[in-house]
């Protein structure tokens, strides 16, 4: 436990708002998970460490999710970054909404969650989901029985439904609009929240 405290204090030394959104026991668990993933024991995770998770290997979006943990251009993520990404997925609690209107928006706010999801689509980071990017994600999510033409038309249809400014791509604002309908999925209730895994 000492080790945990020490490193956590180290992380907390830097101005770290993410540590405050998790409870003590949650941080402990996350840290223990972090260390169990970190086979090289150098305090950071590389992509291979993530790929060692077997369930992630058969998740269609596995690679993208892994990618989301790593900041731009880097290959290693430390515990703070790890927690930071995971902080997006805490459910929004009601008592958090009212406090701290002036501070930085909490990571698990609705728009930040959607932004996270948006970044999973948008690889070239131009703040638009082009048809091509959509096709790629679709292809990843779909079995082998759909032909390219069908997939193409589905992608077309998706863009058409969301696109409002006619640029044949989905901007973040348009994505938010569509995402709001299905947002509750990111916010739990029907499915066990990811924090269930921490029990």
């Amino acid at each position: 436990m000492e080790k945990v405290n020490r490193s956590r204090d180290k992380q907390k030394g830097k101005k770290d708002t993410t540590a405050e959104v998790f409870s003590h026991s949650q941080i402990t668990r996350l840290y223990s998970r972090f260390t169990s993933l970190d086979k090289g024991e150098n305090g950071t995770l590389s992509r291979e460490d993530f790929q060692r998770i077997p369930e992630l290997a058969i998740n269609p979006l596995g690679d993208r999710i892994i990618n989301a943990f790593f900041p731009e251009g880097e290959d290693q993520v430390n515990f703070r970054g790890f927690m930071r990404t995971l902080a997006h997925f805490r459910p929004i609690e009601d008592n958090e909404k009212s406090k701290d209107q002036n501070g930085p928006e909490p990571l698990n706010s609705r728009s930040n969650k959607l932004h996270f999801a948006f970044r999973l689509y948008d690889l070239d980071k131009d703040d638009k989901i082009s048809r091509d990017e959509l096709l790629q994600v679709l292809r990843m999510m779909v079995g082998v029985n759909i032909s390219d033409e069908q997939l193409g038309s589905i992608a077309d249809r998706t863009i058409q439904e969301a696109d409002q400014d006619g640029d044949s791509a989905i901007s973040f604002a348009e994505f938010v609009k569509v995402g709001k309908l299905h947002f509750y999925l990111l916010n739990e209730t029907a499915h066990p929240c990811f924090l269930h895994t921490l029990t």
Partner: protein
Amino acid sequence: QTEPLHTVAPVILSVNWSVSHQIYLDLLWWSSFHLYHKLPSIVPESCLLILVGLLLGGIIFGAEEKSPPVMNSDVFFLYLLPPIVLDAGYFMPTRLFFENFGTIFWYAVVGTLWNAIGIGISLYGICQISAFGLTDITLLQNLLFGSLISAVDPVAVLAVFENIHVNEQLYILVFGESLLNDAITVVLYNLFKSFCQMRTIKVIDIFAGIANFFIVGIGGVLIGILLGFVAAFTTRFTHKIRVIEPLFVFLYSYLSYITAEMFHLSGIMAITACAMTMNKYVEENVSQKSYTTIKYFMKMLSSVSETLIFIFMGVSTVGKNHEWNWAFVSFTLLFCLIWRALGVFVLTQIINVFRTIPLTFKDQFIIAYGGLRGAICFSLVFLLPPAVFPRKKLFITAVIVVIFFTVFIQGITIRPLVEFLDVKRSNKKQPAVSEEIYNRFFDHVKTGIEDVCGHWGHNFWRDKFKKFDNKYLRRLLIRENQPKSSIVSLYKKLEIKHAIEMAESGMISKVPSSVSLSDYHEGKIKPLSPTEMENMREILTKNLYQIRHRTMSYNRHSLAADANEKQAKEILIRRRHSLRESLRKTNSLSRERPAAANTKRFLSLPKNTKLPEKLRVRNKTSSKVGDSSDSEMDATTTVLNLRPRAGKILRDQRLRQQRPPPDFRVEWKNEVDGSQGGRGEPQEPSALPQPSIGFRQPLLTRPRFGTLSREDMTADHGSARPTPPPRLVRQASQGERQRNKPENQPY
């Protein structure tokens, strides 16, 4: 004396007739029931089975003018119940069970106590009212009745929960509770029964009763674990006699049950503990075929038992052994419901303090509503000694009413109620094609994040147990000495290799080509007709990958989800393929090199075609010997070190903006001989991101590979082999297109 024979023979014959006809009819019914697939979703199967039983009972009663053969309690407890519990225990997700063990234990022990005493005392209060004519029922009799009616029945719970897809946590809570409360029920039942027969009760007796509970429960578990270990140890040495391996599993589990019952301990706990212990170790020792046999046979036994139980219940209802008393029956029912709801509510408030994730109101409702009574109460009530219980028939009637109510009314309505409680916040006004996509996308993301967080939290005891397990138990109980690689993972590797080869021939065309891109630029998007939209939605629904379920939701009638395995295979293959492609693409240091040359060299087709044949030949010989043993494999395996040097090169040069390929060693133990091993190695390192060897992948369960019979493999080979020549051509032309795509790999 021939007299007894004359009287006995017709009885036996009639029993035989009725039993066999029952079985026959019920099988007929059951198969037709499953053919009409809508029905199970509305009405749980147990209801229909009881109805069939009622029908049969009515027929027999009408035909013979006497009560049909009542289900013998002995038959139930000795023969019908163990298979069901064994099945449930064997397929129980152990991790989830132990994670929630505290809560389960809390509900099972305290909850059952609460229910039993509450119902007993309140019924006693009702009996005191002389208007109902029940004053001769003593407090102890009421308490006994309360204890047997509060037993939540795993059979009924399972039967109903198959319809509603609750989340895993909830499922394990209710199910675990129904299994564990057997200990309490047995203790209470025996306690009160002996109290009823005693003249005076001292305080010491009550304490003895409490102590008895611990002995019964823990003793049962210990017996189960002990025999589970013995079974695992036995299977360590059975590689010469594969065919009777399944026998050991069933033998030892039944033995544990009987032994526990013999010592008046809890047989259900014993058999559950035995099954859970065996599951861990036996799985690795037995052959693939034995494993499949065990699973299917277990399912068969439990299905038959369950069907028989419910039908017997129906049959036994019809008859003359009833006494109706409005007050007693209705109040029993009322108190059962009230006390259950109260109990769950109060207990949850307390246990929520200790849980990281509190149970919501919906969870509580399902737990309370899912407390179904079933055959256990039924048999227990038949076991009451009529000398001590002059009003036994009244009890029987009340129990039957409660069971019928819970199974029918609660069973049928639980599903609509659960759906009603799921308040959906999205408006369904606009059924967009993309809706399914977004839903699934978010689900995958969430599942992925959950997996990153992982199951392994900070749990002192679990880590300790794992250490102990690895150090001592596994060495003792599992045959191979290499903890990393067992037969199972070896098979997996073979299958993966084979699947990859197969996939190469089929999957290459599936990468979205630039053809569709060019189409888009030329045409406009035309508005789609509703039918076209419907088609699209249908296509999507059918083809979108499912979310991985962490634990296979328990289903009495079917085994592992084959769809999930197929999907997992596809995803894995595609990822490896893309990774290989990306490596190949970026490994070419000069971009001017034509892609065609690249691909030809990489795929090295002639060798590919030989490979499947070799695999098949090897597999033939190996399966003749009996499912593989490592020692045989070792002679013909090579360790294929595919160490991608590309990683280093790429980092130096920063050719790619994407992440660099993973940089780890992959060991392939396969049957390819040395010459094949060089395939692709010196030219292209094909880094196959396989999760570390021997890592037990809970998702890729055995049936996936075990059920791939030889016939399947030969069929696949047959299709794979003629394709190489056209593949070459297609690949060459496609290679160019792929290079034109801005991003080839979906990373």
